[in-house]
C-alpha cells in the first residue's frame, strides 16, 4: 500500500530526511504546473519548485497534520512564484496604451465554435495571449491563473495570496478586463 503524506512527514520529522524526496516526487508536477502558469517561464518555474520544496522542508515542523501537504506546498509555491514575478517586475508597471488602435494588429479568426483547439494552436493567437498576460500585475496574473486555469475558488485564492476574498475577486476581475482588452484584436467571425 502507498504511504500517505502524513506518515512520510512523520518519518522526515523523526530523522529520515531522505523520505522528503517522496513528497517532492509526488507533488512536484502540480507545483511545477502552477509555477509555470504564474511565471510563464520554464526555468523560473523550476526555480520556484526548488524554493517551494526547500521552504516546505524548513517549515515542516510547523505543518499542521490536520491539513493536506499538497494544499500546503501548493500555497507555498504560489507565493514563491508571485515573489519571483514581483522580482522580475518589468511587466508589473506596464501600462496599456488607451489610444492604441486594436485594428492595426487585427487577427482574423474563424468562429471559435468550429474548432477551438485547432484555432488555439495559432502562433499569432498565442503571442497575443502571452502579451496580454504580461500586462497583468503579479497579483492579477496569479489570481487569474488560480481562478481560470486552476479552477480555485475565491476563498482559496484569498487564502493563498493572504488577501481578503473581495480583493481576490477584484484582482481576477481586473485581470479579465486587461486580458479582454489585450485580446481585442481577435475578430471572431460568426
Amino acid at each position: 500500500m502507498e504511504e500517505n503524506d502524513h506518515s512520510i512527514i512523520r518519518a522526515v520529522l523523526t530523522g529520515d530526511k531522505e523520505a522528503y524526496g517522496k513528497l517532492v516526487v509526488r507533488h512536484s508536477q502540480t507545483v511545477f504546473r502552477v509555477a509555470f502558469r504564474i511565471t510563464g517561464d520554464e526555468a523560473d518555474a523550476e526555480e520556484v519548485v526548488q524554493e517551494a520544496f526547500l521552504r516546505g522542508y524548513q517549515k515542516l515542523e510547523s505543518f499542521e497534520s490536520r491539513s493536506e501537504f499538497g494544499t500546503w506546498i501548493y500555497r507555498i509555491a504560489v507565493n514563491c512564484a508571485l515573489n519571483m514575478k514581483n522580482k522580475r517586475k518589468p511587466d508589473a508597471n506596464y501600462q496599456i496604451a488607451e489610444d492604441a488602435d486594436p485594428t492595426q494588429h487585427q487577427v482574423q479568426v474563424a468562429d471559435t465554435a468550429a474548432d477551438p483547439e485547432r484555432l488555439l494552436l495559432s502562433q499569432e493567437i498565442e503571442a497575443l495571449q502571452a502579451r496580454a498576460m504580461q500586462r497583468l500585475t503579479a497579483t492579477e496574473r496569479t489570481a487569474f491563473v488560480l481562478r481560470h486555469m486552476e479552477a480555485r475558488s475565491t476563498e482559496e485564492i484569498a487564502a493563498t495570496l493572504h488577501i481578503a476574498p473581495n480583493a481576490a475577486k477584484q484582482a481576477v476581475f481586473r485581470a479579465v478586463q486587461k486580458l479582454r482588452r489585450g485580446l481585442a484584436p481577435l475578430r471572431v467571425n460568426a
Partner: protein
Amino acid sequence: MKHLTEEELVAYFYKDSPQPEHVTIHLRKCSDCADTYAALRRSLTLLKVIA
C-alpha cells in the same frame, strides 16, 4: 431595465455570483446583456490553458 455590470458577468462566468438565478433570468430577458455575456465567454474561452 438596469443592465448587468461587467463585474457581475465575470462573477457569473466563474460561478461566483452571489445571485446566479437573478443573473440567469436577466440574461434570458435582456438581449444586450446576453450579447455582452456571449462576448465575454468567447474571449475567456479563447484564453488557452497553459499546460
